[in-house]
């Protein structure tokens, strides 16, 4: 049987990888890819806690489903913003979108 720790360490590693992507990539789409990895890492934790706790309490799975909905909403709005920025500024590099800076 797999101990709970394996899932948690696995999720922590995936979360860190996603965070590295968010912090280091220049492209806005790539940053969103990193966010997806982080959200998935969280979902693994939620599912693992559901399984290793009382299986009859569905809180973990319900939370995971709401994370799915949030992820879908975030990607839809995020990519719409990226496309809109690209249309106006002709770039999707996060460093170069600096209209609010002077």
């Amino acid at each position, binding site marked *: 049987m797999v101990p709970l720790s394996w899932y948690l360490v696995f999720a922590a590693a995936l979360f860190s990888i996603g*965070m590295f992507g968010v912090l280091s990539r220049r492209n806005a789409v790539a940053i969103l890819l990193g966010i997806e990895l982080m959200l998935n890492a969280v979902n693994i934790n939620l599912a693992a806690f559901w399984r290793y706790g009382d299986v009859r309490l569905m809180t973990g799975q319900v939370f995971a489903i709401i994370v799915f909905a949030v992820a879908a909403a975030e990607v839809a709005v995020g990519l719409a913003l990226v496309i809109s920025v690209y249309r106006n500024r002709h770039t999707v590099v996060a460093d170069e979108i600096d209209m609010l800076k002077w």
Partner: protein
Amino acid sequence: MTGEQIVFLVVAFFTLAAGFMVVTTRNLVHAALWLVAALFGVAVTYVTLHANFLAVVQVVVYIGAIAILFIFAVMLTRRDMRDQGPQMNKNWWLGALLAVLTFGGLYFLLQGWEGMTKTATSYPVSFDAISELGSALVSPVGYVLPFEVASVLLVAALVGAVYVAFNPRNGDTRK
């Protein structure tokens, strides 16, 4: 080492490798496809956790919709997507350091927690997680409010995405 542990290790290694490729590959379409691989690994992880519904929803939502959206977005913003110039910003080492520190910190915190080495109780044989989940989502004593909030959020996101991405200049993106 039991069969389950071997399966878990293979899947976890595959997922982490794919995740690493997502954040390091230069070609963004490849990055999106590696993301699909990583998400598929996560779906298999759900199966090992007996969360079949989550696994299938993961494939439908992430691979069927989100990954496709990413590939579309990469192609629609392609002028800057040529593999030239650095894909990482100049502070990437700081990001890497922070990621390693996060992992280390989480690992350190988990070490000190007594629930860490817990193993799961055997899965109840005649337990129907799907119907339990369904009634939990719509029952007033369950999670009907978060569920409704999530649906409102989705509608708002849908309207917002259409509004933001809609081009008033009748589809002509070139100046």
